[in-house]
């Protein structure tokens, strides 16, 4: 489980590097243009921290280390991710349980992450922030949990929901963060942080499936 988590996290780091220029463009359209570079710095920090951790590190400790790596990044995004990841760590401490229990725990972890980010940043859906990709992600996990026990299917639906949520921010006007100064001029392109979130969860989901089915 810890190995699988490592693989997923490193996949997310690579996906962020690949998206650096795109994320810079999105952040620059309305904000200050650093998000691509900032997330790449985060990816580098995360890789370094993971290398330093023994292979038997628990998933919770692994996440806490990743949270610290993200805190080092600074910017608005650093504290938000580090708080979110710290909250998820608590959920993962119980370790795996199989079947629906995993899905339930993932749902709780994602919900805890959202709560942590909202507590810190006070953004609500519609503010054109990563919340607009994270909130539908959490909702989709909840809906899936209520209907079927299939973790992969649930994750796939949640990833799609976050992607849709990220795209939907294109029509939104930024109300918080750097971009808010622009008012209506911030409309047009999707939010950088929402986009990077959807990139992260898709990369992790793909890597997780690949790792389990051995096509990783």
């Amino acid at each position: 489980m810890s190995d699988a988590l490592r693989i997923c996290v490193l996949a997310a780091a690579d996906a962020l590097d690949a998206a650096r220029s795109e994320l810079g463009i999105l952040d620059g359209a309305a904000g200050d243009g650093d998000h691509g570079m900032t997330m790449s710095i985060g990816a580098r920090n995360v890789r370094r921290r993971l290398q330093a951790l023994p292979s038997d590190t628990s998933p919770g400790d692994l996440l806490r280390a990743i949270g610290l790596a993200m805190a080092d990044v600074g910017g608005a995004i650093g504290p938000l991710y580090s708080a979110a990841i710290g909250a998820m760590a608590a959920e993962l401490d119980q370790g795996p349980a199989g079947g629906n229990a995993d899905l339930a725990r993932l749902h709780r972890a994602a919900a805890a992450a959202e709560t942590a980010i909202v507590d810190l940043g006070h953004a609500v859906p519609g503010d054109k922030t990563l919340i607009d990709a994270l909130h539908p992600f959490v909702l989709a996990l909840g809906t899936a949990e209520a209907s079927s026990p299939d973790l992969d299917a649930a994750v796939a639906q949640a990833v799609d929901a976050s992607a849709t949520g990220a795209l939907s921010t294109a029509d939104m006007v930024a109300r918080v963060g750097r971009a808010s100064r622009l008012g209506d001029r911030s409309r047009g392109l999707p939010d950088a942080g929402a986009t990077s979130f959807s990139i992260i969860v898709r990369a992790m989901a793909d890597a997780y499936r690949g790792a389990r089915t051995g096509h990783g």
Partner: protein
Amino acid sequence: MTSGAGPSRGVLKKLINDPFDAVDEMLDGFVAAHADVVRLIGERVVARHQTGRPKVGLVIGGGSGHEPAFAGYVGAGLADAAAVGNVFAAPSPDACLEAIRAASTGVGVLLSYGNYTGDVLNFGIAAGRAVAEGIDVRTVLVTDDVASAPKAEIDRRRGIAGDAIVFKCAGAMAERGATLDQVERVALAANAATRSMGVALSPCEVPGAGRLSFEVADDQIEIGLGIHGEPGMRRGPLLTADATAQILVDTILGDFEQPSGNDVALLVNGLGATSHLDLYILYRAARRVLEDAGNTVSRSMVGEYVTSLEMAGASITVTRLDDELKALLDDPARAARMIR
């Protein structure tokens, strides 16, 4: 991305190495060049050499790319420490906390920085930890950018070149041996009396981003920009220095309680690529608009104070002065990039 061996393959040409090393190499060079004034603590804190005597600490900071802000304003009569972030990214909570510890001599520490989500979050986390360590911490956010929010939401405004005014006044007050209450009070007063408006003529590029911060036509300018290469509030045609100053100063004066009868400091700040020739022409124009409106310019600052990498453009900052602020601006200061 570029390797340490190859040049920075960005849109704009830069004299850097690996963009991932840019901030750390800059700090390494900065503390080597100004070793008589500052030292590096850890990786991202520039601190003034200890004086021994207890004084209220002033901690400033923010993202990189605004040089000479913020590390350039660390020194006698100014800040005691600056927390340094990545380019256009607020410093980490650890860096902020390190800076607070370095500035603390037991009589309290004032944090002052521009009002941006990232800075508020990171400095806020650090302030909480510092308080837990028993340090008396206060915070004064700089909110001089008139373009960044309407007057009704004045507390949401961002800090741009007004930083230099607020830091100078607070630093001078702390150097005089004032209490934390007094230093906080003058910082609040200086910020409340300060307004800025800027124009951008050309964009900048975050090292490693591989793209310009925004595109603007050859005959257009961005009015009401920030200091991060953001697009401005609105776009307009390129105007003369006189017409530009008229727009910027009128906006500032319209935001003051009374637009005339003020004794003011006028700061014309270059954003990076604009020549000193242009800055002094803009200063002349801004001063005329202020005086024609019935104000007196009794203090002046012209140059690069809070930049936006190599962006072309300038901002105009006006501070309504009383005798106390005037004296604080005149007090001696010996920072690497601000000497009085």
